[in-house]
């Protein structure tokens, strides 16, 4: 029996179901202190003085370090890249404008840390943090990208001329001609919100300095190796003296692809010589960790009479927030993704990403994709409505076909998954019936919409994406699989164990995975970008194969049988068809180990990527009196290449689509326009969908193998969130003839769109 294609429960599921899994807040070290950050109430200010006398007098407080004294107490700190790109950057390069400084002397958003209180208990640290008196000199604050671009605006970061974090352009073909020849041109301005990952586990990290000066840090980071290199550079110590361990992760969704509490925990441990855990409150998590970039895109789309895209023109403003982090990469992905899902030959796109005095924006599942797909997918439907064309058929006509060039890489489209997701998805959803006019209750209208995407597996840029794995057979015939593809709750640990089991030829229960320790695991870029299964899976498959070959080679030489005639099973190694000559693994391996052999396989992922295809269909009811949108049902059809563990794959797609529905209907951080203070930084105020207001999400798996993927698998985790919001917007458009273009699509905005549409119709 093969492991790939089966759905065994997650390896850690029983521990999680019985409360035994240990997250960072569950970890305790003897003598451990608790850290609490003091955060700025100003969006932009210079720190003039920090008075800690009253706070230090609080019982239980050990020490307080602040912007004023950190440089003298911890000399040699360097500016650092919040996004942990330190491996990819030139080691000799100067810091970039917008890199962060630990407890810097200028604060750049409401919530930027100014001081770190270290105390014997969390309660004491919190009490004392409220007593730290900071003297600020407030500076002009740039609370919006418009402020940042205004003439004479202050400069937030030296070297960032015009407060521009990054600017990208992309031109394809001859857009002027495409627009001149178009059957219809539609244009709208789209606004997307700062969506928060809002993972259930509050951010935290625990750091400890060993007697030999080595630092161990426990953190739910998505990329422990990149975190290690970035922390090494920040603290000016060799990377080998930092060990990053990832405990059970309580959800990440991109938030933990940046440094958060780790530098503060290490700072505290270095200053006190004691273990330090820094745990953020939920409010700190909302304001002090990165969110999805807010964007404003004005896009014009030229369509041919059959509803296909002749050309696209777009101009986007992206809000980086206070520091650089992932902004350059996300802006690049956003522009690429605007032309990567269909045959689009003519385009002129520009995106400007600006620094503002607001919380930092960074990685969130989809990484620029939702911000690109919302305008593109909605304009297709607006254009098709004007043309009287079925938007599903339009998408089918311009879909990407096998062998087509692809916007993301100089690599061809593999497989016919785009067509299959559109066609099979439409069939399973009942597209034609759902698009037919429905009788509705008075004041309510019903509609159906869809959207599709061609997404990528892994990082777009070449040479930035690396996975390696090691499989080692222990003398008793078990296998230790070492990989740094951290399991954030995704089920990747189980999935990789399945791939490894099949590559070697052993049952799943022989495989033990260690995926959380930089001291033990080979380098891996991390768990994000729909890359973990695809890329780490490739490495694991290669490592398993090499291990099997080594074991068979040794068996061949000791049994004096040609390797090609040997098979490896859980029972041992035997000549094909001669179980009587079987040698058990423990016996074979004992002989091998005693003779000085080691049974290890290494694998490395090639520098490839694979397209993954997804179509999301949604049916909604809109209450025309209140603007309330109810999502009746959603279906996601996704080409995953090969579902290694179908239950895990379904769960990933359901989760991605669900977060996309949240983006569509309720989610977005709101900042006070006067002060820059976050207004909805609690679960009470930031509306996540509950089980009672979530539709059933059906998943249709399409399995068109990719030739490079492990067992044919393609990336899974992100496509659903990329197109769920436009599918819902398009359903609203179908139901009512209009839809707001500002996320989230709240009842107020839906009503406003309905009213302006009817007044326009009356005027016409």
């Amino acid at each position, binding site marked *: 029996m093969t492991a790939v294609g089966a*759905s065994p*429960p*997650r390896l*850690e*599921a*029983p521990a*999680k*179901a*019985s*409360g*035994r*899994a*240990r*997250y960072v*807040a*569950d970890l305790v070290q003897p003598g451990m202190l608790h850290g609490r950050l003091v955060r700025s109430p100003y969006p932009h200010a210079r720190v003039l003085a920090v008075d800690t006398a009253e706070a230090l007098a609080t019982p239980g407080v050990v020490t307080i370090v602040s912007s004023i004294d950190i440089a003298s107490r911890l000399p040699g700190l360097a500016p650092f890249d919040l996004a942990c790109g330190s491996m990819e950057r030139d080691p000799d390069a100067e810091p970039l404008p917008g890199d962060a400084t630990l407890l810097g002397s200028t604060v750049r958003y409401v919530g930027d840390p100014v001081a770190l209180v270290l105390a014997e208990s969390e309660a004491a640290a919190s009490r004392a943090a409220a007593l730290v008196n900071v003297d600020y000199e407030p500076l002009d604050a740039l609370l919006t990208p418009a402020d940042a671009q205004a003439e004479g605006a202050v400069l937030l970061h030296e070297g960032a001329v015009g407060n521009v974090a990054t600017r990208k352009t992309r031109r394809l073909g001859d857009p002027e001609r495409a627009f001149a020849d178009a059957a219809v041109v539609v244009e709208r301005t789209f606004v997307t919100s700062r969506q928060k*990952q*809002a*993972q*259930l*586990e*509050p951010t935290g990290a625990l750091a400890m300095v060993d007697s030999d000066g080595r630092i161990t840090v426990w953190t739910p980071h998505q990329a422990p190796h990149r975190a290690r290199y970035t922390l090494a550079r920040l603290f000016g110590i060799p990377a080998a003296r930092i060990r990053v361990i990832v405990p*059970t*992760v*309580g*959800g*990440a*969704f991109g938030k933990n692809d940046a440094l958060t509490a780790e530098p503060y925990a290490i700072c505290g441990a270095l200053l006190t010589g004691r273990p330090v855990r820094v745990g953020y*409150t*939920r409010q700190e998590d909302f304001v002090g960790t990165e969110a999805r970039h807010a964007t404003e895109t004005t896009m014009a789309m030229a369509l041919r009479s059959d509803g296909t895209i002749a050309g696209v023109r777009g101009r986007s403003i992206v809000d980086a927030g206070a520091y650089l982090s992932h902004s350059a990469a996300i802006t690049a992905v956003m522009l690429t993704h605007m032309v990567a899902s269909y045959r689009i030959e003519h385009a002129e796109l520009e995106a400007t990403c600006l620094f503002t005095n607001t919380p930092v924006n960074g990685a969130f599942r989809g990484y620029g994709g939702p911000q690109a797909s919302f305008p593109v997918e909605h304009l297709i439907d607006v254009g098709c409505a004007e043309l009287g064309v079925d938007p599903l058929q339009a998408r089918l006509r311009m879909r990407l076909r096998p062998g087509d060039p692809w916007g993301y890489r100089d690599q061809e489209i593999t497989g016919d998954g785009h067509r299959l997701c559109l066609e099979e998805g439409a069939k399973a959803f009942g597209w034609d019936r759902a698009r037919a006019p429905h009788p509705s209750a008075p004041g309510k209208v019903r509609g159906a919409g869809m959207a599709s995407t061609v997404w990528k597996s892994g990082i777009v840029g070449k040479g930035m994406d690396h996975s390696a794995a090691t499989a080692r057979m222990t003398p008793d015939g078990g296998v230790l699989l070492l990989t740094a593809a951290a399991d*954030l*709750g*995704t*089920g990747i640990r189980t999935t990789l164990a399945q791939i490894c089991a099949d590559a070697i030829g052993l049952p799943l229960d022989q495989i033990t995975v260690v995926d959380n320790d930089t001291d033990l695991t080979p380098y891996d870029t991390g768990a994000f970008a729909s890359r973990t299964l695809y890329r780490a899976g490739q490495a694991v498959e290669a490592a398993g194969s090499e291990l099997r070959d080594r074991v068979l080679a040794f068996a061949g030489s000791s049994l004096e049988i040609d390797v090609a005639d040997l098979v490896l099973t859980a029972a041992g190694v035997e000549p094909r068809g001669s179980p009587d000559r079987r040698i058990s693994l423990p016996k074979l391996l004992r002989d091998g180990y005693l003779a000085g052999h080691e049974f290890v396989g290494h694998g490395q992922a090639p520098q490839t990527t694979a397209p993954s295809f997804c179509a999301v269909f949604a*049916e909604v009811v809109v209450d025309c009196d209140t603007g309330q949108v*109810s999502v*009746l*049902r959603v279906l996601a059809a996704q080409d995953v290449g090969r579902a290694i563990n179908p*239950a*895990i794959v*379904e*769960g990933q797609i*359901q*989760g991605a*689509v*669900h*977060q996309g529905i949240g983006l569509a209907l309720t989610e977005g951080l709101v900042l006070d326009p006067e002060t820059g203070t976050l207004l909805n930084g*609690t*679960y*009470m105020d930031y509306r*996540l969908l*509950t*089980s*009672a*207001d*979530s*539709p*059933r*999400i059906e998943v249709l798996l399409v399995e068109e193998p990719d030739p490079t993927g492990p067992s044919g698998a393609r990336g899974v985790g992100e496509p659903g969130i990329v197109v769920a919001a436009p599918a819902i917007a398009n359903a609203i458009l179908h139901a009512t003839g209009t839809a707001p273009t500002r996320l989230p699509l709240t009842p107020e905005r839906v009503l406003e769109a309905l009213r302006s549409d009817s007044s326009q119709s009356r005027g016409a």
Partner: protein
Amino acid sequence: MNVTIEVNGQLTSRAVPDDRFLCDLLRDDLGLIGTKVGCREGVCGSCTVLLDERPVRSCLLLAAQADGRRVGTIEGLATDGVLHPVQQAFVDHGALQCGFCTSGMVMSAVAFLDDEPHPDREQISEALAGNLCRCTGYVKVVEAVASVAATEQPAASDGPGR
């Protein structure tokens, strides 16, 4: 003050500060880390435990308020290492991903099924609305709970699932 609480069937007496919350007593004093704290505001439901068999937010309840009463946590559900049917259903149905909400979700489901052993999907969705999950979209969570209830509906006939 001194509190005496029956936790998972065992009587425990402790001197606690007046302002100690039940979740902290459970986690820090008793080492019952299965109860998770996601917000400390009584919204996310991760810290849900049973107080005299009723689900409560242990981050909003003072330890003192549990004095003389019975508290049930996730650690008390399994018997002799055999998972409670709700726990087992979460494992079998892939109803947990990161697992951080799972303890609270399971406790809410256990209490709900005690009251309503034969719920339909809509009732289950309503009953779990006080427990946020960010990973699953609740689909498999509802499936898991429905599988424990004897009245599981066939998938085709249960409409939009609202």
